[in-house]
């Protein structure tokens, strides 16, 4: 990794038989920042995330995650990156400790290390009091927090969070967003946060990127984008206004 960029993509492209999901995408995420990854449904955000982890092969272009090419060394990338998929699933008849135990196993942690780590992450996401309840009985907010716990288990340097607050009640969403912010601040984990909740994104993101139809139409800090699109002089720009402006232009 050079010049403090944890993610760099160079004309990353993914074509599906009927359409181009990602079209010559070039952007970067800097170390230690929360990058708000915005865009309408079907803009190619998830496809981009999958390509960054080597789970999908790009049709053209390339990407580097911590200087590693995910196409060639997917396993190395995946040990640095924690991914929380949209609508993350769990084995319904396991409890939280068992779920986390399986993830620890897959990451090759030994038993003792895993046990300590599981207790630690359950505390971090405040699920310790529910650790022996079956995941099937969890509320959506608890599931989402357990998903974060699974991501944290492998001590990631970078987190990909795909719609983490989707379907959460306002309080749960706020709690989750605060958790993400504190993880970024205290543990120096860089975050790529894809979300439709623009106010939440605005609250915690250092920079944002707006992706529409497979292209990154804007990338930068909210202030910079606001100045560019809405003109100088405003005290605080609303991300929503900026987003709508870009959206109408395309």
């Amino acid at each position, binding site marked *: 990794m050079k010049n403090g960029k944890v993610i760099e993509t160079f004309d990353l492209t993914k074509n599906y038989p009927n359409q181009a999901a990602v079209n010559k995408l070039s952007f970067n995420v800097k170390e230690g920042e929360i990058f708000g990854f915005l865009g309408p449904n079907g803009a190619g955000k998830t496809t981009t995330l999958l390509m960054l982890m080597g789970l999908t092969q790009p049709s053209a272009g390339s990407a580097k995650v911590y200087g590693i090419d995910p196409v060639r060394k997917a396993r190395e990338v995946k040990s640095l990156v924690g991914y929380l998929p949209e609508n993350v699933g769990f084995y319904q008849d396991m409890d939280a400790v068992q779920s986390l135990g399986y*993830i620890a196993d897959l990451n090759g942690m030994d038993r003792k290390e895993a046990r300590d780590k599981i207790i630690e992450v359950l505390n971090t996401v405040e699920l310790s009091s529910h650790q022996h309840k079956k995941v099937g009985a969890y509320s959506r907010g608890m599931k989402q927090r357990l998903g974060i716990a699974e991501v944290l288990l492998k001590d990631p340097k970078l987190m990909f969070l795909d719609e983490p607050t989707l379907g959460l009640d306002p309080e749960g969403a706020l709690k989750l967003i605060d958790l993400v912010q504190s993880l970024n601040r205290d543990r120096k984990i860089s975050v790529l946060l894809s979300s439709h909740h623009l106010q939440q994104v605005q609250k915690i993101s250092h920079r944002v990127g707006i992706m529409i139809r497979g292209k990154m139409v804007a990338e930068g800090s909210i202030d910079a984008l606001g100045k560019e699109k809405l003109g100088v002089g405003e005290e605080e720009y609303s991300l929503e206004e900026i987003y709508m402006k870009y959206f109408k232009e395309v």
Partner: protein
Amino acid sequence: MKGISAVYRKELSDHFSSYRFVILFALIAMVSFITSYMAGIHLKESMEGMAKPKFAFLMLFNTTGALFSMVQFVAFFGPLIGIVLGFDAINRERGDGTLIKIVSQPIYRDSVINGKFLAGVTTISIMLVSIVLVISGLGLILLGVVPGVEEVGRLFIYIIISIFYISFWLGLSILFSIFFRSIATSALAAVALWIFLSFFVSLGASVLADMVAPVNAQGSERTEATVRNIRLKQFISLFSPMSLYTNASATIIDPMRKTTEALVLMGPMEKLSAGRFQNPLPIGQSILVVYPYIVILIALTLVCFAISYLVFVLQEIRT
């Protein structure tokens, strides 16, 4: 390797703690227990006051006591074990959204399918070995005969063949679970193929053979026609894993069976020797007789798994 062993351990514990497995195992254990018990009683009665035949112990497995023998039972219902263990292996995880989570961990993607297949094969092996051991114990009590070295060897080979046979169906149902997104569809497809290959191929074989090589000539040509008809019938039935397995296992379990060919197809000398020499075959010769069947069965299993492997590794996983 750590990926495979993690998936393997998880799947194995899933298998053994699932109701599905418990029900299946109870059913199979019960049926095979009853089957061999009936066979044992039957054998005991017919051997009353006579010198014990040479391979009395093996007869426990291939004597038709009540409805069918143990060997026939595994041939019929073994596939169901494989199907039940594998039909939702991949598509359930896909539907639950757990598959993407697993493959985003630092493991090779093939670890998932390898671990699942190996866990299934282990479950099958444990099931078969324990059933054969239970029946053997039953035989010791009922018949009072102790198996010799050769009988143990034959049982061992029988178990190996059976494991491959059932693993073929496991591999096939895993393949369907990769192809079909819906669990019901993959289960139905596997069961349909099982019924087709096991029952309809042998039925269809006679129909097809009668159509292609009908036996309606008279005189010396009639023999020729019959031979052709039967050859064709046998060839077609080789497409059924069940007939492969039945032929192979029956010959391994029964030392008196010397060929898998129909009597009609034998030449005069062969018939003569078959009639004249009534001694059992040594184990090595029995294996030699069914060697091609065993090889095809193993090849089928491996090909089936290889296809699942390729499809899974090349497929895009989004959920």
